[in-house]
């Protein structure tokens, strides 16, 4: 199995979360303990075993292509932290 040392700061950036210095240290220790337990899985013979993404063997379900009513705009926007002109407003993403 892979090296179980976790670069917490690198992973936190992938997950788009800021962590304090204290959290980086604390989580680092705790996660190494958890990964040491997870290491157990390397004992299991998985040769030729299919992975299960779900508890049952599911297949795609498609519905009839008939338009149905979805949540109205005001439903989507009622919890928006910031909005303008019936749209969500966020800081500028791309400089002109």
């Amino acid at each position, binding site marked *: *199995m*892979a090296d179980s040392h*976790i670069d*917490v700061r690198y*992973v*936190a950036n*992938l*997950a*788009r*979360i*800021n*962590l304090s210095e204290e*959290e980086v240290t*604390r*989580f680092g220790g*705790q*996660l190494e*303990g*958890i990964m040491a*337990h*997870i*290491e*157990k*899985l*390397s*004992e*299991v013979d*998985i040769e030729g*075993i*299919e*992975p*299960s*993404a*779900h*508890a*049952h063997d*599911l297949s*795609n*379900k498609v*519905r009839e292509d008939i338009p149905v009513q979805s*949540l109205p705009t005001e*439903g*989507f926007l*009622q*919890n*928006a*932290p*910031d909005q303008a002109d019936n749209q*969500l407003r*966020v*800081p*500028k*993403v791309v400089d002109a």
Partner: protein
Amino acid sequence: MSLAASSLSSLRRQLTSGEISSRDIVEDVIAQISSRDGDVGAFLSHHSEDALAAAEKADLSLPLGGLPIGIKDNINVAGQPCTCASKFLKDAYTSPYDATAITKLRAAGAIPFGKTNLDEFAMGSSTENSGLQTTQNPSAPGHIPGGSSGGSAAAVAANLIPASLGSDTGGSIRQPASHCGVVGLKPSYGRVSRYGLVAFGSSLDQIGPLTHTVEDSALLLNALAGIDPRDSTSLEDPVPDYTEGLDAGVSGMKLGLPKEYFADGLCPKIRERIESAAKKLESQGAEIVEISLPHTEYAVATYYIIAPAEASSNLSRFDGVRYGNRTDHPADMLSLYKDSREAGFGSEVKRRIILGTYVLSSGYYDAFYLRAQKVRTLIRRDFQEAFEKVDAILTPVAPETAPKMGAASGDPLKHYLADIYTISANLAGNCGISVPLEPIDSLPIGLQILGPHLGEKTILRCARAVESV
């Protein structure tokens, strides 16, 4: 007995005979909560006026007509907050729609009442990870109620409301039911729609009832079960009447005791209670056999890869753009995401997001996530093979009675390892129920009865037999 302390089935009889009205029940629930929930801390919010208005219009001809049901605060109820016990959503989110489970409860005449406390985003097994408040174990203040549906279990156990809904991703209905001394049912994966349940581990999550009695559990499952076009994992299989044949007993049933569930780490007194419950079922005509679920020792490791992986993906939606907490004056988009998430999430949620992101990240996916999915196949096979030999499986729910608050703080792995008896049913998609046994030193414990996929009728019948001795 106060109305709020009564079973749904007995309230139903009193309602239809005209002895009481739905308003009487809802008023008693409001009175019980206002006088006693300050000590318990089961509810995060409730809208008394809405519930009283619904009680006035209750249609008593419906199977749950006029009966108030508490709702775990990760299930959307239109017009009410849905905090998931997270600061990220507190005062920053009102549900614009009903979850399908709520639509179905309303269609059966029930009144969704109040939102109950949980571990933040259902991540935990003590309700201590709530970002908003503490919930006490009603049987033993100072002890945890279990979790993550700790508010729902405590609300029923403290006789604040006759029944409630929880959600179970790794034991989050069955374990608090066991610790609080109520009945908790996790339906088979796909039996109940997940639409409107805030997703934690999408391949594991199920909504289910917490009740005083097994009959009430069946009554609620009747209302909740069934296919939903909005959840493509919900099952088309017909929904039987789960109350029918409840009292048929266990004569002729074959019940398995998995040897791996009675190994080291299980409190000897709990083992004794489970074995004595098995003996009683044997005396009622069941055949008890020892079985093996050989991959049990890998269940915790498998679960703590798959569940955080799914959670890290599901919780990416909490980014401060569409709803919930947004940091003030973000410099750019990246800091909007990162600062909003830092301020909104508690430690356990951050820890699981980091763990899940790590096991899915480039270079580690095959070693951790893919391997865990393969071991999941082996765990599923263990159960498939076991259910060729037995009708249901009897196990403990948790290795100990409800610990004191703070007992495992700072040691997340200790909490995770205590999930050993409940998480396999989520990985395999089976149904399971916790039914109360005689308490140990006044701390409740439950017997877990696991059934095959869609074997709810079997485990309810078996649980009813346990309850009646």
